[in-house]
């Protein structure tokens, strides 16, 4: 059964090729047949593999399928090989299943678009790259997938390329993540140089053998990999691309910029967790980045008027939670939140897509309202996802996954109380911005009439994801709520158990109570400001300080402004000043020399046969002279 793993990326890549080559000639019916069908097949294979993994796990709880060796030069021997363990099986399962639902949704959502087949070609290529990233057994293959998903992200953000703003957003995403990728490549070079392999399991083994805890190489390599993860997962300080990435079609935002690609950084850190445990300072940096990001992005989300940008900041903030969990060594908690987040955030985006479509592409939430009655099914599914995101206690998946992270942040040996406090504040913010969104969009009076209602293919994925957003949490519950820990047990097949530190007067139930309290406060504030006293919300931004703060958060803490001045403009300035520097002259001089030589040798091509014969004769004479006299 496990040897079928190669099919998971193979189906989408085959479908990508078909769509890319014959796309324009296929009928409107055939395109989704390939585009959605291939992902369905991949999902089926992943489900089968997961089932097999649970019923009869392979020896050692991992399985490697070596397809072929790419090159074999001087000890550098990267293989095209797939590695299955609990981590990759779980993530592949989530990616293909959620991916399938989003593809199904897109089949209707993108129906009227002229780039229908192009869209599915890109989306399929994305799923193939993402699975390669997750399944690759060496960092080079992982990097191939990593760049592949980056490329697809670029292509899909700029999908509606006729609007230059979309192209700019796509370029921004590509360039900002490139900063992280550069760090990551340097990390790969460092690892290969010092440990002589890129095969992940070998590499981890070698690192354990050669590097002591806290060794500078381990710290440097871990920090460089963290750089790559930060770029891809839109964490501080490279988070600025994700809100602009919302320029892409909404299913893209759901699949790439919420559920899957942006969690690649989480996967990378979890995959190389041994390296991070060898570098405690780097691991602490992960936790700090996560905590800072979740708070900052939460504030930014509070002020956005654009429904997709709110969700984008929310994604940044939630991935911050995952980073926080990774940073404190709560590996399985991070993955748990990854899974539930994939469910509810994908659903939120799909719901946002339904709303935007039915309101003539309106993005501003303040021009929406009263949609509860107009789009009841969209409302209920959106509400389920929103509650899960905000962490409605006891019944939603988000509550369990987030609660676990927050408790682990306190109880882990690497955790700290400050981080715990930040995480709880994050819950308050999440609940506030989520219910602000829900109250403004679905309650109050109708502002824009609904002109189009979603069909079955769009609503079925929403309902399924809504169910998952609720029940997904019961895979792992705290001891006082049933004490199920099947998810954690499963993850421990691949990832180490968190080391607990002194709890210091806190218990899990108390921690969960704080979370609940934060949730309720956020909910109440949202209710107060956006249902009861709408005018108060405006009053808050009326005074100068309120206005300034609002503006500051709206512009994402002025990050873009800062980067524009610190990096972009100086570089453009230097480029302009240095337009005609000395070094260029060397290259243009070589080009000129080449052209000069061309003009010289061209004279020999006269077209006259006697000249040609003379050339042959002269050549022979010279060669005879050489052999005779040298």
């Amino acid at each position, binding site marked *: 059964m496990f040897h079928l793993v190669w099919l998971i990326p193979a189906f989408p890549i085959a479908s990508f090729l078909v769509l890319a080559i014959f796309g324009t000639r296929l009928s409107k019916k055939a395109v989704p047949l390939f585009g959605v069908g291939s992902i369905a097949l991949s999902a089926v294979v992943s489900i089968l593999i997961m089932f097999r993994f649970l019923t009869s796990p392979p020896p050692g709880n991992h399985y490697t399928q070596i397809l072929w060796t790419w090159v074999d030069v001087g000890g550098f021997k990267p293989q095209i090989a797939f590695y299955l363990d609990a981590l990759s099986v779980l993530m592949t399962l989530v990616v293909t299943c959620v991916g399938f639902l989003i593809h199904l949704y897109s089949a209707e959502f993108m129906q009227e678009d002229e780039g229908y087949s192009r869209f599915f070609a890109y989306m399929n290529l994305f799923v193939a790259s993402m699975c390669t990233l997750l399944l690759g057994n060496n960092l080079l293959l992982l990097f191939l997938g990593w760049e592949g998903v980056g490329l697809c992200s670029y292509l899909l953000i700029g999908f509606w390329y006729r609007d230059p703003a979309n192209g700019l957003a796509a370029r921004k995403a590509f360039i900002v993540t490139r900063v992280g990728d550069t760090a990551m490549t340097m990390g790969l070079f460092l690892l290969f140089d010092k440990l002589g392999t890129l095969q992940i399991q070998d590499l981890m083994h070698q690192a354990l053998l050669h590097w002591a805890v806290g060794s500078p190489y381990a710290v440097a390599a871990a920090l460089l990999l963290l750089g790559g993860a930060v770029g891809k997962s839109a964490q501080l300080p490279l988070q600025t691309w994700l809100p602009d990435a919302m320029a892409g079609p909404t299913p893209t935002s759901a699949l790439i910029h919420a559920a899957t690609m942006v969690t690649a950084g989480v996967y990378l850190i979890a995959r190389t967790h041994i390296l991070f445990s060898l570098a405690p300072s780097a691991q602490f940096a992960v936790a700090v980045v996560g905590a800072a990001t979740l708070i900052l992005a939460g504030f930014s989300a509070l002020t956005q008027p654009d429904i997709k940008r709110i969700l984008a900041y929310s994604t940044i903030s939630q991935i911050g939670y995952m980073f926080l969990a990774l940073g404190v060594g709560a590996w399985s908690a991070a993955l748990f939140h990854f899974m539930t987040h994939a469910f509810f955030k994908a659903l939120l985006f799909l719901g946002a897509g339904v709303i935007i479509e039915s309101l003539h592409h309106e993005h501003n939430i303040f021009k929406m309202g009263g949609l509860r009655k107009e789009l009841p099914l969209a409302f209920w599914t959106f509400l389920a996802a929103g509650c899960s995101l905000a962490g409605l206690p006891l019944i939603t998946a988000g509550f369990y996954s987030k609660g676990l992270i927050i408790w682990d942040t306190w109880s882990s040996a690497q955790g700290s109380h400050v981080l715990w406090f930040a995480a709880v504040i994050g819950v308050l913010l999440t609940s506030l911005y989520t219910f602000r969104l829900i109250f403004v969009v679905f309650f109050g009076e109708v502002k824009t009439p609904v002109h189009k209602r979603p069909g079955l293919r769009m609503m079925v994925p929403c309902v399924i994801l809504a169910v998952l957003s609720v029940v997904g949490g019961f895979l792992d519950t705290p001891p006082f709520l049933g004490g199920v820990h099947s998810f954690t047990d499963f993850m421990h097949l691949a990832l180490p158990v968190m080391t607990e530190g002194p709890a210091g007067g806190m218990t899990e139930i108390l921690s969960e109570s704080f979370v609940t309290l934060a949730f309720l406060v956020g909910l109440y504030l949202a209710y107060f400001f956006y249902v009861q006293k709408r005018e108060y919300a405006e009053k808050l931004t009326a005074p100068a300080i309120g206005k300034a703060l609002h503006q500051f958060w709206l512009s994402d803490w002025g990050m873009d402004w800062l980067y524009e001045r610190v990096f972009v403009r100086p570089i453009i300035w230097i480029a302009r000043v240095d337009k005609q520097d000395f070094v260029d002259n060397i290259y243009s001089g070589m080009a000129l020399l080449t*052209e000069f030589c061309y003009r010289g040798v061209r004279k020999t091509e006269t077209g006259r046969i006697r000249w040609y*014969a003379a050339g042959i*004769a002269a050549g*022979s004479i010279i060669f005879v002279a050489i052999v005779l006299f040298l």
Partner: protein
Amino acid sequence: MLPLLIVTAAAVVVMLAISIKRSHLLAVWLTLVGLAAAFFSLWIVAPLTPIQVTPLLIVDGYALFYMGLILAATFVTVILAYGYLENQSGYREELYVLILVAALGSVVLVASSHFVSFFLGLEVLSVALYAMSAYLCARKPPLEAGLKYLVLAAASAAFLLFGMALVYAQLGTMQFGQIAAMLSGGACYSKALLLPGIALIITGIGFKLAVVPFHMWTPDVYEGAPAPVTAFIATVSKGAMVALLLRYFYETGMQHLGSVFLVFSIIAIASMIAGNLLALFQNNVKRILAYSSIAHLGYVLVAFLAGGTRAAEAVTFYLVAYFITTLGAFGVVSVLSNGERDADVLDDYRGLFWRRPVLAGIFTLMLLSLAGIPLTAGFVGKFFLVAAGASSALWGLIFTLIVTSVIGLFYYLRILVALYAPPAETGEAAPAGGLPALSRGGSYVLAALSVLLVWVGVYPAPILDAVQRAVSTLRLF
């Protein structure tokens, strides 16, 4: 011997068939069947090798590999020629007889182990090529090409013969194996006569390979000859000569002589530089390909000079890649040509992508392979050349190879830019009723070549194995 006999028989049968009934399709089918039969007979012959057939010919794994390559390339040429000639008026069938005869000459060359068979094969090949170049004698450029080729080839053959005579006069034998024995055995001979002999032989070989300074005919002949014939000259004729070059010099050990090594180094460096420079601002695609083939033979010589099994493998592998690529490139030229003239000016390709995206894609692949971009056969081939050169520490030659490759990239990219340029608005309007249909056989062949190109580029192991087995039968000195 079986493959040679089949090719000969095929030529005779096609000729007889033409005299009985003129039918273009019949002639093509007979030719193709003959070539396919000869190709598959290689497997029948394989278990019996190596055998020495008279002192003239040796049929070993090496010869069989090259025969396969030549027969396959001829097969492709015939299909291209069919599509090309369908658009032409006048007698068409005789070209296939000529192609078969030329293939026979090449097959003899790769199996020759004696000066006599060397010269015999060369002349059979050349005489057929003169007629093939000038085949469309109603047009001026082919006639000019044929004549130029005839005069210069005859002259260079005289040099070759004289060189052979000098070597024979000194060593008293014309068999490669015995020459090797004499050279190493320290038999008494006068270097003052032997070495000029070798130099004159190099002239003859250099002419056929079109390397500097014997290259000047190439662009004129390439430009003038009909596109499928050009493809044949660029691949089969040169490939057979390289096969012979390897066998002759490696089996006799002549390339170890310091001055011979020097001569070949000069030729290689001059070819790489001149070939790439001359192509830079050319506007004629056939001439660009001609100059690029000069440069490519220069690259081949780099590995040839390295010596040893590794080098022979690299050269052979490179030739396989070169065959695929060159046939593909000239194939595109050939299917785009019409009854009046060949599509050889750069302007014919401007905006091709917007008219014929698939064909433009194939041409792109071929050009990228010629430039040696990864994932194509050309890259793998060049990699082995450089590896072979590096293992013998020929740094100067490798340096030239790399620098000139960069220059080469320029003119390949120039064609690519033209391919993807926006279609000219002011040009003649698109012909009514869409574009003329392309020859179907030609299209299939091009598609197959593209697949092969990428396959060899991504997964070269099977070809590499075959090359290694073939080269292992070469008796290196």
